[in-house]
């Protein structure tokens, strides 16, 4: 048994973290959320150089040819830094085109996705908590209707669209019959938009029906990984603040009530690492356990991240509730992780079914 990171994986995380700290620290994230740009282009360029746009795309198509665990380790670091980049959509689009696309589709798109030349995303939700393949209603033949809560919709050139019957199709921005408009999302580090289809044609991915469940699981794993990174950052923010802030003439870290709150946050957070690793590992190596592991990981980590982010605000006092301070950035990313692809309750119900209860 070896359920630990390799030296390369550990180095991947630490070098990525150093790079983001240099290029886009939390000051820069604040500037981003107050600005109009869809993402931080400088950081995204560095991430593409790093290979983050094609981590799971095969080397024959210009990707790194790595596994879900490696991608999830990247997602954790991005979550830790609240990185305002179009990673989620790009990663998922690449994974699913690689799994479900025809030879021609793969050759056409994957190299461009891996190189960052084309920005892609996934259009899965339809509003009203419709997220999952078996819930999709948009007709495959002649798509009409709305796909909502699409990450980085305004900047993407290519969309992987979830269709009725669990099918998947490709649509390009600028094609006739596709209207793209922004949504005013709560998490300004991951902007959302809406796609309105009216007579557009989509190009089906031949294996879409077979692979849409894997797309779902990949999304759930990446959200769980992001949640772990974010929750870890919330603990760090609150701990560091407690070591600096003075009241009653002493550091507030000396007050046992606060120390216990901080300990509880850590006790919620740290063990979750194993669960998201397992879900990422199962995705590639234990496929029959992947739906269960991904659902449980998303439900547990997104739920707990949301609580730890709230605790982080409370541990700071008034400063934690301001727009200027960092805590709300993570609280809002926690809301994204909580609701996107379905709330924890949805996935806990799936866990119950998958457990044979």
């Amino acid at each position, binding site marked *: *048994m*070896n*359920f*630990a*990171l390799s030296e390369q994986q550990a180095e991947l995380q630490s070098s990525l973290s150093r790079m983001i700290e240099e290029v886009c620290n939390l000051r820069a994230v604040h500037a981003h959320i107050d600005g109009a740009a869809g993402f931080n282009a400088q950081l995204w360029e560095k991430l593409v150089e790093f290979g983050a746009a094609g981590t799971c795309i095969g080397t024959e198509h210009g990707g790194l040819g790595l596994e879900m*665990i490696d991608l999830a380790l990247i997602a954790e670091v991005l979550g830790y830094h609240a990185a305002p980049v179009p990673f989620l959509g790009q990663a998922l689009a690449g994974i699913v085109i690689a799994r479900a696309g025809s030879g021609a589709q793969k050759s056409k798109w994957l190299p461009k996705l891996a190189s960052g030349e084309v920005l892609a995303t996934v259009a899965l939700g339809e509003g009203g908590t419709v997220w999952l393949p078996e819930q999709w209603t948009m007709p495959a033949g002649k798509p009409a209707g709305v796909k909502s809560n699409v990450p980085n919709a305004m900047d993407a050139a290519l969309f992987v669209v979830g269709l009725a019957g669990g099918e998947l199709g490709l649509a390009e921005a600028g094609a006739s019959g596709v209207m793209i408009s922004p949504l005013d999302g709560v998490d300004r580090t991951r902007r959302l938009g809406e796609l309105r289809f009216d007579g557009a044609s989509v190009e089906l991915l031949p294996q879409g029906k077979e692979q849409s469940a894997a797309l779902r699981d990949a999304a759930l794993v990446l959200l769980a990984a992001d949640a772990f990174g974010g929750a870890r950052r919330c*603990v760090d923010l609150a*701990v560091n603040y*407690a*070591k600096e802030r003075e009241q009653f003439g002493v*550091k507030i*870290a*000396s*007050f*046992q009530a606060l*120390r*216990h709150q*901080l*300990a*509880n946050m*850590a*006790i919620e957070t*740290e*063990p*979750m*690492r*194993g*669960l998201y*690793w*397992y879900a990422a*590992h199962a995705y590639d*190596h*234990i496929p029959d356990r992947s739906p269960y*592991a991904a659902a*449980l990981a998303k*439900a*547990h980590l997104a*739920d*707990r991240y949301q609580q730890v982010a709230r605790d982080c605000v409370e541990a700071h006092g008034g400063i934690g509730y301001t727009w200027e301070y960092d805590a709300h950035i993570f609280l809002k990313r926690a809301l994204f992780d909580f609701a996107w692809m379905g709330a924890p*309750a949805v996935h*806990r*119900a799936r*866990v*119950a079914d998958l*457990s044979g*209860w």
Partner: protein
Amino acid sequence: MDLAYGAAYAAFRDEVKAFLKANWPSKDTPKGSPAEALAGVPRVERERAFRTKAVEAGYLYRNVPRRYGGSEQAPDPLRADIIREEFFRAGAPLEVPGNGVSMLVPTLLERGAEWQRERFIPKTLSGEHQWAQGYSEPGSGSDLASLRTKGELRDGQWVVNGQKIWTSFAYRCQYIFVLVRTEPEKPKHEGISYLLMDLKQPGITIRPLKQMTGQSEFCEVFFDNAVTPADWIVGERGQGWSVSRSTLKHERGFIAGAERQAATFGSLVGLARRCTKNGKPAIEDPDVRQRLAAILGYIESFRYSSFRQLSMNLRGQDAGIFNFMTKIAGSNTNQDMAKLARDLLGDDLLLAPPAGQDRDDVKGKRRGNEQWVAQYMSSLALSIAGGTSNIQRNIVAERGLGLPRSV
């Protein structure tokens, strides 16, 4: 990453399974095997005979030298976990439970005199000698180092006066290892000595305390001019605090905690199948399913983080803050399970927990849902015994998060 144990360990697992099949009675015990001969033997002798074989085979007391009755195996946490898993699955006895094996033996191996090891370890491993732990006092709980039970060297022997409390199973133990204050003029941590004492003597009175479950596992122990020979001290005078904290670099059960949680969770799912809610099996109720899945999130998190901890340990790496939170994470999950069981039980929550002196006394008697009433209470003991959850939070805060020491 790889979650499989690998071929060498798969072969080892097969070896352990074959050993168990041949030596521990089960429903498919082979004819003419040692296991068949043991089937009718009373439990105590059956377990003792089995353990002797298991030590010979190298499965128990792996870190204890052969000359003291151990099996002296090279440290290998993976093998240790396979042994625990397979013994647990077969219902076969592992090492003798209790403070003697888990605390005194490692302490003697690290800090004891040679004659003490030879005299005390073999009979402790065999279960002949059971040891009580004399640490807590009525005035010294979390602040253990403030203890006041007094030890004085008079006429070539220690004379002990004072009182210990929460001393589990003292009524069935022959000996006690006890922390006493021998240097009252020194700072509190430096004035303590670690003594070994015979419990069966006129100067010692044991009074069982009845717990909320109705069982009486823990006791008060009164010392009234109780005596022990001058050389029944482990380490030097005044070193008792560090002796009591000595830990041996031995295999830890990394996965054992996760397995126990998973076993309790399996029983909880069984309870949800048996109980009804709104006229249907409770397991079909959406709220019950949500709560089970929420608990499962904690259990699977703990399980795979334990695998990570084990893997890192095998490579000589430090698993970091997770090392400090395994106790409290486990007791939190047990409390969550207790609360769900409470809500499932319906009228059975009104049943008294099973009656008896202690858990072994209750074992083997027919048990229904009242065992969950006992679990509802005993899950509380988990967050108190061996360092309360608030003390665990202090440890996480100080050693895990690096917060400056308070108070």
